[in-house]
C-alpha cells in the first residue's frame, strides 16, 4: 500500500512501487485524462505536475512520488493559469483528436506559470517534448501568446 497526494486528495493505493504513476492514475484512481502515448517519456501525452513541475508520468515510478503533490488535467482548472489555458484552447478550437491535449495543457500551464511572456523560443523549448500527430502546434503557440498578451 502506498499513499500519494493527487489533486489535493490523499489516496492509498494497492500498487507495486515500480508501477508508473500514469497507470496508477488511470487504473487505480480512474483519472483517465492523462494519456498513454509512448511509455518512454518521448511524447508527453502523460504529462502531469509534480510539485508544479511538468513530469512524464509514464516513466515515473509511483514509489518515487512520495509526499509530493500530483496535479492532473482533471484538476488544472483550479489553478488560475490552468483555467486560462483551457479557455484559450477552447476559444481557438485547438484540439482535434484531442488525445495529446491533456499533456499539452499541463505543459503550457507550467510554462506560463514560470514565464508570463514566453517568446517563440521559450514555447519551442517548453512544448517540443509534447507530440501532436494532428498538428495543432500553430494553434497551441497562438493560444499561449494570446493568454500571455491578454491575461497575464
Amino acid at each position, binding site marked *: 500500500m502506498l499513499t500519494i497526494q493527487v489533486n489535493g486528495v490523499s489516496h492509498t493505493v494497492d500498487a507495486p512501487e*515500480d508501477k508508473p504513476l500514469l497507470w496508477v492514475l488511470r487504473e487505480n484512481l480512474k483519472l483517465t485524462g492523462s*494519456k498513454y*502515448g509512448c511509455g518512454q517519456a518521448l511524447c508527453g501525452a502523460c504529462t502531469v505536475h509534480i510539485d508544479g513541475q511538468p513530469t512524464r508520468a509514464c516513466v515515473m515510478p509511483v514509489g518515487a512520488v512520495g509526499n509530493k503533490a500530483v496535479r492532473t488535467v482533471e484538476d488544472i482548472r483550479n489553478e488560475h493559469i490552468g483555467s486560462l489555458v483551457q479557455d484559450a*484552447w477552447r476559444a481557438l478550437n*485547438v484540439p482535434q*483528436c484531442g*488525445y495529446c491535449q491533456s499533456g499539452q495543457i499541463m505543459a503550457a500551464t507550467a510554462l506560463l506559470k514560470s514565464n508570463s511572456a514566453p517568446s517563440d523560443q521559450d514555447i519551442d523549448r517548453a512544448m*517540443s517534448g509534447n507530440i501532436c500527430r494532428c498538428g495543432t502546434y*500553430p494553434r497551441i503557440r497562438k493560444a499561449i501568446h494570446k493568454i500571455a498578451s491578454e491575461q497575464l
Partner: protein
Amino acid sequence: MTHSGVSRRDFIRVSVMAGGGLLVACGGGSSGSRPTTPPSNNNGTPPPTPAEEFILGEFMRIGTDNRITVLVGATEIGQGALTAIPMIVAEELDADWSLVSAEQSPVAANFNNPYFQNLLQFTVASSAIRGYFDAQRSVGAAIRQMLINAAAKQWGVNASSLRTEASYVIDDIGGRSASYGELSSAAANESVPSNPPLKDPASYRIIGTSTQRTDATAKTDGSFKYGMDVDIPGMLTALIARPPRFNGQALSVDDNAALAVPGVRSVHTLPGGVAVVADDFWAAQQGRKALQVSWNELLAGRTDSASQRNDYNLRLNLPGLPIRSDGSTLLAQLQASETLSADYYFPFMAHAAMEPLNVVVDYDGSSAEIWTGTQSATLDKIFAGVVLGLLPDQINFHIMPAGGGFGRRGNPLADFVRDACFVAKALQQPVKVIWTREDDMKGGYYRPAASVRVSASLNSADEITAWTHRVVTQDVTASLYVENALDALHDMELPPLAELTDFETGMPYKIDNVLMDAHLTVLPTMPSLWMRSVNKFSDVFAQETFIDELALRVRQNPYAFRRQLLSEKPRHRAVLDAVSQAANWGRSTAGVSQGIAVMGHWNSFIAQVVEVSVSANRELTVHRVVSAVDCGMAVNPDLVIAQVESAVIFALSSVLSGEILLEDGVVQQSNFDDYPVLRMHQTPIIETVIVNSGNSVGGVGEIGVPCVGPALANAIFAATGERIRELPLSRLNFIIA
C-alpha cells in the same frame, strides 16, 4: 463514383420517446434489432433515454427540454465529424445550435455512409462530410416540416403561414410561438414528408460558420473518453506478444516466468501471437517481458527494405496494368524531340496515431459488447462475429472517438478487432487489449512503399506531347471500391481498373497523350494499408516535382508554366492563383526559396507554396507553408483550416523523416525516438486561404497532404539545385532544424 439514389436513405421513422420528446430514425430500418445501451457520452450531459427506448436506427433525439442530440455515423478521429455533421442537420432543422450536441451512433445500417453506397460505416477517403451531407440535410428538413405541421394543427392555422427560427416554430400573424421541445411529442405523430424543401445555401445560418467544436470542452478537461479510457467492471488487461516477423506463429510457449509475475492471470496462444492477461497494464507488460515464445517462421514475411527497393525498381522497366490512357503515348514519344524521365522511391511509413490501438471486449459465450476507436465499424463487427461465432444481433459494438486514425483504424481486415476477440473468446471475461507504442509501430499495415517513374516528351516547340506515370506498389485502395465492382458485376459489366482503384492522380495538365500504369503487387506477409492521402502522397510528389523540372527545362516560371497547362482546369487554376497571391510568389525574402505544387482529388482542390532555407551544412528550415484550398463549400471554415494545418504537419513528418525499414522481415523502428515526427520547434508558419467556389462539398481530411512534399522539394531545388527523388529527406543527409 455514382451514389445510390435516395431510396435507401429517405425512410424516416419517428416515434415518441417514453419521457416525451421526438425520436427520429432514418434509413433502412432495423426494428427487430435488440436494444443497445447508450453509447459513451462525451458532452457531459446524462443520456436522456432509457436503454429500452434507444432503438437501433435512432438518428436524433429532440428532448422536451429543447436539447437536440444528433447521432453521428462517421467516427470522430479529430477531423470534427461530431461538429460538422450535426451542423448540417441543425441547419435544415433551423435548430438553436447552442442546444445541439453529438454522440457517436451505434453500428447500424441506418448510419452507413452514402459515399460507400450506404453499405458501410467507413470513415476513410475524406468521405464523412461529402458522404453524409445530402442525407443529413433531408433528415433535418423533414423533421422541421413535421414540427411545423404539428404546430399548425395545434393552432388551427395553415402550415405555410408558419416559420421556424432557432428551435421555435413561429406564427407571426397569431403572435405566438412554440419550442421544438414543446412540439416534439405531437410532431412524432405527423407523417414524414417525402420530399421536404431544402434551404437555399444563401440562407444558411449555421453551415458556413466557424462554430466551436462540440467536443472542445471535454477535450480540454480530461473528461473526453477514448477507447483507451473504457472501464467496465471486472475488466482485465491483455498485451499480445507478436511474432518478430509478420505471419509468424507461436511454436512453443514457456509461460512459467510470466505467470509468476504478480497480477498476471493467464496466458493464451492465439492465431497471431500469445496474449498475457493481467489485472492491469503494468503487470501485463512485466508478464509479457517474462514470456518465452519460440516462433514458427516458415511462412513468415521476410521483406527486406533494400532488396524490396531493388525489386520495385526493376519492375519499373516493365509495363503495368493501365490506369489511364489518353491518346497514344508511344506514337508521341517516337515523334518527340526529347523525352525526359525520372525515378522516385518512397518507403513504408507508419501512421503512429497518438492513441495506440486498443479494444475492449466483453464476451460471455453468447453475446458480446465491444468498444474501440475504429474507422471501419461495420466490417469490424462482421469480423468480430466470425471470430466469436455470434450473429450481428448478438454483438453490441460501440464506436469510440479515436485519438487519431490516419487510415490505420480503417482496416477492412479488422486486424486489431480480430485479435482482441480471440483473447476474449479464450478468456470469456471483460478484457482490454492494449497495444503499446512499440506494438503499434511494429504492427504493420503501413503506407506501402512505392517506386514511381515519370516521363515527359517534348516536341521541337518545347510543348509537352506525352506524359507517362508508372507505379510499383501494393494495392490497398482497390478493396475500397469493391462495392462498385459488385454493382457493376450485377449489371454484367466489368468496369475498367481505373474505376476500381483510387490510383489515378488526376494529372490535370493539358497533355494530349497520357499513360498511367501500375504494378499492384500483393504481399500477404507485408501488411500495408492506406495512410492519409493514400498513393497521392507518392504519385503527386513525382508528378509535381517532375513538372517543375520541365518548367525549368523550357525556361519558364514553375507557377506560370502550370497555369498555362491548366487552361481547361478552372478550379486548379483558381487555387494556384490564390496561393501565388497569398504567398507572394516570386518575392520571398533573401535566403528563402519557394516551391509550389497543385492537385485536385476527393472533390477538392489545393495549391501550396513552401518556403525553405538550406544552410551550407544541409540544415533545412521550413519557414512557411501557404495553402489555397477549394473544397466546394466549407461547412465549418475553421475546421477546414484546422484540417489543412493538420495535413501540412502530418506531411512534413512523413517527408522529413517518415520511414519504416525492414531487415529480413523485422521492422527496425519502435517508438518516437527512432520514428521521429514533427515537433513544435520544427513547425513552420502555416497560412491557409479558403477559395469558396460554391461547388458541392469536397473532402478536406487528406487534400492538404500530397502537395507539401513536392512543393518543399521544389523549394529545395530552388535553394540548392538538387533534385529530390526519394524520401524521407533525413535519408538524404539533410539535417532537420
